[in-house]
């Protein structure tokens, strides 16, 4: 399957630490975000949201709101219901018999989570819209709320959706090998239960929508803080019955997404529908406290994982059973998120048999969906914690148990226990490097000394050796998973007569640096200057074809599409060159950035020169179309499988539970690196977000489904002050899935870090007899675990 690129060209930019070309505009405040867009005559939209997690709507009285200063219009969900067709889309019905309720953009008769919108107000200013939204009177009858995931799944539970006989939406299974037989015979069984609390995505830029209609033409332009302008356009056209070519969606600069902007949101649908109704330009920008309720949440699972092993710790089989919190509705890819981890509960370990079962359950809480890592952090957390439990059980060092079980190094696809065809991997080399870098033996010696002296400050070391699957592809495999879209990506390369090059990509960066990385690839491949390459994205009028950015797919699918488009440009350039020099194509080679006749370096032309010839079209081969512009749509043959080893060392104040990350070493293998500075940034941000999840973050609700961690004071996100300087390193095992050898790195840190951190906490508390702690390991949880363990003695 491996394909070799024509790399006669020297690598001038790829692999180098080229500074991001996006940054000058961003750091000087010249970039345009959705909230920067102001249109003539524009009005502000504000949503009225339910304070109840589950309630019957008796009536909505808009009269007082309509009398407020500056108010232009106000609508209840019922008044607008006819505009919304089949409601908000879910593109991933994971099983044939999945229970999938209609999801109205505005609730009409029942609200099913606190924060669900029920009405909308339009006013001259944002403040007026806010004041008016508070004047809308909604009469509710509160109903019992389904908050606890286990109770929601049980027989006889209060129903989130009356039309179904249970809150269990689907059960999806995967099994290979003789799992039950192995478990019945294995000498060692490790059985663990882990919780994945809900997380609230906190992109620095909250969501926002601006719509400009041209009523006479029934045409609409939408700016949205979205990761997915292409998906959004198609879905909006489907939901509202618009002609797709009359709708243009622009994702201007987007300040972070982490999966939370991979969505077709209520507000996007409603604001567009209102622009059609009113013929006015409209704007809505999310408030931060609104973000906490109305943007989809991440994670939310109960994980039961069992390992069967030999006495020496050799793994035989893995059995994982997941209960996954869907929230009140199925959003765009809600049901599929846990399944993205469904193939990874055996991690980087060689097992003979594997089974995975996931049940998706409705609750009266905000819907869940993709959040950085999406399914894979959950899987990695479970297997990496279970491997530590196995190590404790067989009384071995966690590094030793991992080495015993690693899949041996391979560079041809290897079939994992879960049936994945893993492209390439070398797991022990990453772990060795990470342990050496952190000084594992020395740390263990210090730990022993502190234990002996019963020091108040104890240290712990935690390991996480992870694998993930990126690229969300190929399309046929997605079809077999009942995913409604493809996994391809599009690219166009346009060589201008002036020598400049435009690259159009279907990916939609929101912080990743595609403009820089794609420019590096194209500059090297076409032999042009990095500064002469301009990358366009995020506007459906500019890049009509695209699948956008999520799941660490952009480089491994979109960047590879750019590479193939460049190869097509070179192929045409070669034909033109051969024609001009009256040589045969076989005698032309691309060398030192020029197409030249072999053995005659004076007979050579650069791509910019050839682009000029192609533009004048004075002397082209018979029948050739003028111009030098090529498109390529890449549908990858497989996923890519980044991997690595992370080691975390913590210091814990055992009187208070306060925990300090002392050192953190990450050795990642993301295949070929295009830009090491960008990779470094992704890894650092990912680790920070992973530690945040493990140590600080958790959405906490009361028994009525009211969010208690409703603002940044209570929902704790660490700052730089709480984190150490990370030590990062790499191993490079090029992917065999694509000719660039790239694997993706956007989610690696978030996937690897949580178990590394939690394993280190449990390790530190071993002298007290602590063997389990839930995420997030807050000081109070640690203090409680120590006290409980003391009480057990």
């Amino acid at each position, binding site marked *: 399957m491996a394909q070799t690129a024509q790399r006669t060209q020297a690598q001038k930019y790829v692999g180098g630490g080229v500074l991001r070309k996006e940054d000058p505009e961003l750091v000087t405040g010249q970039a345009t975000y959705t909230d920067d867009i102001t249109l003539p005559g524009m009005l502000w939209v504000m949503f009225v949201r339910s304070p109840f997690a589950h309630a019957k709507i008796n009536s909505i009285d808009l009269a007082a709101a309509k009398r407020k200063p500056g108010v232009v219009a106000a609508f209840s969900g019922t008044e607008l219901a006819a505009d919304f067709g089949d409601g908000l889309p879910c593109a991933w019905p994971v099983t044939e018999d999945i229970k999938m309720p209609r999801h109205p953009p505005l609730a009409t008769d029942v609200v099913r989570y606190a924060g669900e919108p029920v009405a909308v107000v339009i006013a001259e200013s*944002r*403040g007026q819209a*806010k*004041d008016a939204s*508070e004047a809308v009177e909604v009469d509710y009858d509160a109903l019992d709320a389904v908050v606890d995931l286990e109770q929601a799944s049980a027989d006889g539970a209060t129903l989130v959706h009356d039309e179904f006989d249970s809150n269990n939406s689907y059960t999806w299974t995967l099994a290979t090998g003789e799992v039950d037989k192995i478990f019945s015979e294995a000498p060692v069984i490790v059985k663990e239960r882990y919780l994945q609390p809900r997380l609230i995505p906190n992109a620095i830029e909250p969501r926002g929508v601006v719509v400009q209609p041209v009523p006479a033409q029934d045409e609409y332009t939408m700016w949205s803080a979205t990761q997915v302008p292409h998906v959004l356009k198609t879905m909006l056209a489907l939901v509202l019955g618009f002609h797709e070519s009359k709708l243009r969606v622009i994702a201007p600069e987007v300040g972070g997404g982490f999966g939370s902007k991979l969505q077709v949101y209520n507000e996007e649908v409603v604001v567009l529908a209102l622009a059609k109704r009113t013929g006015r330009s409209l704007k809505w920008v999310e*408030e*931060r*406290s609104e973000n906490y309720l109305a943007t989809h949440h991440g994670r939310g699972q109960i994980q039961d994982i069992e390992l069967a092993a030999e006495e020496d710790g050799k793994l035989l089989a893995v059995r994982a059973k997941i209960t996954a919190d869907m929230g009140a509705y199925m959003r765009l890819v809600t049901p599929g998120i846990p399944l993205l981890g469904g193939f990874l509960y055996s991690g980087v370990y060689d097992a003979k048999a594997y089974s995975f079962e996931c049940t998706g359950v409705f609750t009266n809480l905000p819907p869940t969906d993709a959040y950085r890592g999406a399914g894979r952090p959950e899987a990695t957390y479970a297997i990496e914690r279970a491997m530590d439990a196995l190590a404790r059980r067989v009384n071995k060092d966690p590094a030793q148990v991992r080495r015993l079980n690693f899949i041996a190094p391979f560079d041809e696809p290897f079939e994992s226990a879960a049936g994945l065809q893993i492209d390439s991997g070398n797991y022990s080399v990453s772990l060795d490097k990470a342990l050496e870098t952190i000084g594992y033996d020395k740390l263990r010696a210090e730990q022993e000394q502190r234990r002996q002296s019963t020091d108040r400050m104890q240290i712990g070391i935690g390991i996480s050796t992870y694998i993930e699957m990126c690229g969300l592809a190929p399309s046929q495999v997605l079809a077999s998973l009942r995913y409604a879209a493809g996994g391809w990506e599009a690219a166009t390369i346009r060589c201008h007569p002036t020598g400049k090059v435009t690259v159009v990509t279907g990916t939609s960066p929101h912080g990743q640096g595609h403009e820089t990385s794609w420019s590096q690839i194209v500059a090297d491949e076409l032999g042009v200057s990095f500064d002469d390459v301009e990358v366009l994205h995020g506007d459906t009028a500019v890049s009509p074809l695209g699948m956008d950015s999520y799941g660490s797919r952009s480089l491994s699918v979109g960047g590879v599409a750019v590479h193939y488009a460049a190869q097509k440009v070179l192929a045409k350039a070669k034909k033109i060159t051969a024609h001009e020099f009256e040589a045969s194509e076989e005698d032309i080679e691309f060398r030192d950035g020029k197409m030249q006749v072999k053995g005659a370096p004076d007979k050579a032309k650069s791509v910019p020169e050839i682009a000029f010839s192609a533009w004048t079209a004075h002397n082209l081969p018979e029948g050739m179309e003028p111009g030098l512009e090529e498109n390529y749509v890449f549908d990858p043959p497989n996923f890519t499988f980044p991997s690595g080893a992370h080691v975390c060392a913590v210091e814990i104040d055992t*009187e*208070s539970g*306060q925990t300090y990350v002392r050192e953190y070493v990450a050795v990642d293998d993301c295949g070929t690196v295009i830009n090491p500075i960008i990779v470094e940034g992704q890894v650092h941000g990912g680790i920070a977000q992973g530690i945040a999840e493990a140590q*600080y973050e958790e959405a*906490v609700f009361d028994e009525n489904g009211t969010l*208690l*961690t409703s*603002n940044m*004071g*209570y*929902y*704790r996100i*660490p*700052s730089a*002050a*709480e984190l150490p300087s990370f030590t990062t390193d790499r191993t490079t095992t090029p992917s065999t899935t694509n000719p660039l050898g790239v694997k993706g790195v956007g989610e690696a840190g978030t996937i690897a870090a949580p178990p590394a951190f939690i394993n280190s906490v449990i390790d530190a508390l071993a002298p007290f007899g602590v063997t389990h702690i839930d995420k997030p390991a*807050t*000081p*109070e949880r640690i*203090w*409680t675990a120590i006290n409980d363990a003391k009480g057990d003695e």
Partner: protein
Amino acid sequence: MIPSAFEYEVASSVGETIDMLGRYDDAKILAGGHSLLPLMKLRLAQPSALIDIGRISDLSYVRDAGEEVAIGAGTCHEDVHFDSLLTEHCPIVAHTAGEVGDPQVRHRGTIGGSLCHADPAADLPTVLRTLDAQLVIEGPDGQRMVAAADFFKSLFETDLGPHEVLTEIRVRKLKGAGWSYQKFHPRAQDWAVVGVAVVERDGGAAVGLTSMGETPLRATGVEEALASGEQPADAARRATEGTSPPSDPLGSGEYRKAMVVVFTQRALEEALSR
């Protein structure tokens, strides 16, 4: 995060502030705004007017007043933190001002604002209560002094009348007495889960507690135990007496009670070793 509409006035003197407060039913004084504005954005506070005293430079000072140090109520935390008089004569105040919030907050937020907001999770009110500070208040009827012990009435409630302004805080010089402020906060920018202030005095120490009730508290049990000669570790066990800590996502009441003992012991040990 959008406040209700309000009037905004800039006062150029304390006298003018008092006049302006008299003109509105429900005006609030705006100093640094770092507690008030977030509450307004959440619409938990909806004052009809803000009287901005941030430009009254006369309210920003630290000066030697003989046996005492006088601090203008409008002095920002950063200036308190780095003030040389306070560092010399009342280092616990300078130190604690550097523990408030983050650098942005410390450059805008003021010592008077922190006292008047009366959040029991705030650090400086506890320290000033522990120091038995005197507060100078001006109002339509002239000036009066109130002891910190009498100033804090309840959660976010003080002795300050609707048309009164806190202008100055007076603290006695410590003359080398040992001190400590232990702030337990998992993130640098967090409020204290618990905070403990200790100032050594003849025959023991004054001990104040943050986040352990509706107002900053004095740990009188600990003070008594120390006065009767108990060791810090034993005295600290009485830190929970008379407390009623909140339970919130930052910590349960039970945890706060356990932590106040841990950090009282640490504060005592640090203060008595200085």
